[in-house]
C-alpha cells in the first residue's frame, strides 16, 4: 500500500471553503431529516405514512426504521421483479429528472452511505489509492455497471418471464446501506425479527464490514466501484445542470485537484466524468480558483495541454 504523501498542503484558512462547509452541513442535515422517524428506532418498526410515496435520491433503504421516503433502487427492482406490474415509470422519471438536475451530486451531497464512507475516511491512517494500479482501477470501475445490469435488471426480471416473482437481488445480497441503516437497527430492537437472522444476515454483515474497513483506507470504495445508483446518475453527469467548470486559461496544471479528488477523476481533462460526485474538493484546493462547481452558464473550453503522447501534466 502506498502512503498518501502527495496530497496538496492546503493553507488553514482554505481548509473548509464555504461550499465545502455547505456540503458537510447539507449532507448531515439531509440524512438526518430524511431519516427522522425516531419512533421506528425505538419500536423496531418502519414509517408507513404518506411520505413513503416519494423517492429519496440516495441509497436510503426504505426499511430503515427512520426513513421517511423510498430508495429508488429498491423501488426499481421491486417493480422489475413483479410479474403483475410494469417497470415503474415514476421511479424512472424521478431518476431521470434528478440525474438531469444534479447528476452524481446526489452521491456527494445526499447519500447516507456516502456520508458514512466520508466520515470513515477521515480516520488518520495511511491511505491507499487504487487508481495507482491503473488496470485494476479501470476494471473495478466497470463493476458497478455489471452489477446494475445483473443484480438490478436481469436477475429480478428473468423469473417474471414465466410469471413468477423475482427478487430484489441487489438489496438482498449486496447492499451494505440496507444492512447498516435497516438490518442492524431493526434486529437490535425487534425481538421477533432477531431469531430469523441466518446466513444471509451474516453474509451481508461481512460485506458491510469489508466496505466500512476499506472506506478507512480508500476514499468511497462502494461509490467508486459497486453502487448501481451511482452508475445510473453517472450517465447524466455530462449534461447535468449542476456541474464542474474548469477555466483552462487560469489552470496552471499543478495537479492538486486530481490528487485531492476522492473519486480519482482527472479533473481538468474530464471535469464532468461519470465518476464525479460534485463534492467540490477539487475547487477547494485549486490555487488559481480555476475550478467552479455549481449551477450556471457553461464556460468549458476543450483541454489544451494534452500533447500527442497523452501526457497531461495532471498526474495522479
Amino acid at each position: 500500500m502506498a502512503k498518501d504523501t502527495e496530497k496538496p498542503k492546503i493553507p488553514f484558512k482554505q481548509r473548509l471553503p464555504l461550499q465545502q462547509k455547505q456540503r458537510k452541513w447539507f449532507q448531515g442535515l439531509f440524512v438526518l431529516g430524511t431519516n427522522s422517524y425516531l419512533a421506528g428506532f425505538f419500536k423496531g418498526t418502519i414509517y408507513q405514512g404518506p411520505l413513503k410515496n416519494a423517492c429519496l435520491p440516495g441509497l436510503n433503504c426504505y426499511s430503515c426504521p427512520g426513513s421517511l421516503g423510498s430508495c429508488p433502487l429498491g423501488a426499481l427492482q421491486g417493480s422489475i421483479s413483479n410479474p403483475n406490474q410494469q417497470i415503474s415509470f415514476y421511479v424512472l422519471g424521478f431518476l431521470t429528472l434528478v440525474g438531469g438536475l444534479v447528476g452524481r451530486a446526489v452521491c456527494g451531497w445526499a447519500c447516507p452511505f456516502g456520508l458514512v464512507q466520508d466520515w470513515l475516511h477521515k480516520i488518520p491512517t495511511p491511505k491507499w489509492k487504487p487508481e495507482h494500479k491503473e488496470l485494476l482501477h479501470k476494471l473495478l470501475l466497470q463493476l458497478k455497471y455489471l452489477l446494475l445490469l445483473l443484480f438490478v435488471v436481469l436477475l429480478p426480471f428473468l423469473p417474471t418471464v414465466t410469471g413468477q416473482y423475482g427478487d430484489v437481488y441487489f438489496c438482498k445480497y449486496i447492499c451494505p446501506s440496507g444492512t447498516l441503516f435497516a438490518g442492524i437497527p431493526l434486529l437490535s430492537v425487534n425481538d421477533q425479527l432477531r431469531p430469523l437472522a441466518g446466513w444471509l444476515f451474516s453474509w451481508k454483515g461481512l460485506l458491510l464490514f469489508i466496505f466500512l474497513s476499506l472506506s478507512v483506507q480508500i476514499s468511497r470504495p462502494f461509490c467508486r466501484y459497486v453502487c448501481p445508483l451511482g452508475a445510473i446518475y453517472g450517465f447524466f453527469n455530462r449534461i447535468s445542470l449542476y456541474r464542474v467548470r474548469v477555466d483552462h486559461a487560469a489552470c496552471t496544471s499543478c495537479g492538486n485537484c486530481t490528487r485531492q479528488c476522492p473519486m480519482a477523476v482527472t479533473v481538468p481533462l474530464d471535469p464532468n466524468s461519470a465518476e464525479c460526485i460534485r463534492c467540490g474538493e477539487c475547487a477547494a484546493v485549486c490555487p488559481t480558483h480555476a475550478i467552479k462547481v455549481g449551477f450556471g452558464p457553461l464556460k468549458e473550453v476543450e483541454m489544451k495541454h494534452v500533447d500527442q503522447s497523452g501526457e497531461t501534466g495532471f498526474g495522479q
Partner: protein
Amino acid sequence: MSLLTQRIVVFALGVILLAGGILRGDVLELWRRATQLCLGCIGIG
C-alpha cells in the same frame, strides 16, 4: 447533438415518465412496497 438539446430531451423524458407513472398509479404501488418491511434488504430471507 448539442448540450442544450440533450438537456431538453432528458428533462422532457423525465417529466413524461414521472407524469405517466403518477397517472398509471405507480406512486400507490411504491407506497405499498415501501411500507412493507423488506426482509431481504435487512438480511432475512
